[in-house]
């Protein structure tokens, strides 16, 4: 067994794949060889020195910092969720149309002429009328129903 082989064994340490005979031969060589003997001593000093290296002290507020971060995460997790509605164009348009029709219908009613100034009431006379037939009522109710369905169907976005 030559020096190169023995030095490989020394550097492989516990992972050297050797039979008992080969290990004993390497140890015999290291005892008799100044170079390999020094390598064994240095290697042992390195291993023990690594195990004994002092531990640098962590920052004194490390624990508090971590606990504060965890507490902040909890606050975020337990905060009330606010939903925004995303209004699709068709829902908005339908809503505006329904509101407009309702306004026109109301402008033509007697109730409006009672509360509105006379000049404005004259302007809107005959402008529209509240639905009086079942068909008109059905159309208005259908429009309102579509509007409400549009509101409910609008996708929600959490923040």
């Amino acid at each position, binding site marked *: 067994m030559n020096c190169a082989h023995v030095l490989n064994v*020394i*550097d*492989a*340490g516990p*992972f050297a794949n050797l039979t008992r005979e080969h290990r004993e031969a390497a140890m015999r060589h290291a005892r008799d060889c100044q170079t390999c003997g*020094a*390598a064994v*001593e*240095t*290697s042992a*000093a*390195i*291993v*023990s*020195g*690594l*195990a*004994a*290296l*002092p*531990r*640098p*002290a*962590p*920052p004194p507020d*490390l*624990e508090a*910092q*971590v*606990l504060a*971060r*965890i507490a902040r*995460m909890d606050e975020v997790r337990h905060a009330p969720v606010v939903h925004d509605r995303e209004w699709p164009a068709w829902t908005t348009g339908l809503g505006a149309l329904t509101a407009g029709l309702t306004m026109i219908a109301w402008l033509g009613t007697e109730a409006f002429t009672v509360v509105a100034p006379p000049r404005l009431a004259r302007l809107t006379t005959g402008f529209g009328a509240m639905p009086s037939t079942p068909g008109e009522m059905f159309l208005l109710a259908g429009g309102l129903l579509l509007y409400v369905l549009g509101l409910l169907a609008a996708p929600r976005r959490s923040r």
Partner: protein
Amino acid sequence: VSDADRGIVADVRRGNRDAFAHLMRRYQGRLFGLALMMVREPAGAEEVVQDAFVRAFTHMERYDDRQPFYPWLASIAVRLAQNWLRARGSIVRHEAASLDSVPDPGGPAGALETLIADQDSRTLWRAVAALPSGERTAAFLYYRDEMSVQQIARALGVTSGTVKTLLFRARRHLRGRLEPMAMRGESLP
């Protein structure tokens, strides 16, 4: 894993913050040393350790309490330190050759050396700090943190054979640096 650790982890899983603080006090020194050895900057090491503890807390359900706790925690810290290095331009790949060729972020021994008062230990630190990244991490985890080859392999994302190769190279490089000093009669750790 010790019964004490298992009990503490069970308490943490039930939401006990004091139990988690206890775990932190137990492992923060080891973990900070590991992070500092990898990133070589106290501020960076603190960032890595904080992130590692927070992640350990939020992912505690993934920890297998039949295994020791520290290697699991160390594997989180190693990956976060690799991400930290990657974010600062160092490329870490999961191959031995690439791990060895990772450029180091700091100076020769960085801030680590300044935290060590003992001259012999500083000599060894300097030699360890000069090792390529993969060898340094493997040697640190094996000899200092007493993790097994399999645990180191999991932490680094490499095979056990690769870890053995890294340890072999580390010992050879350290011997190559420290033996001439011993020959000159200078003390070794």
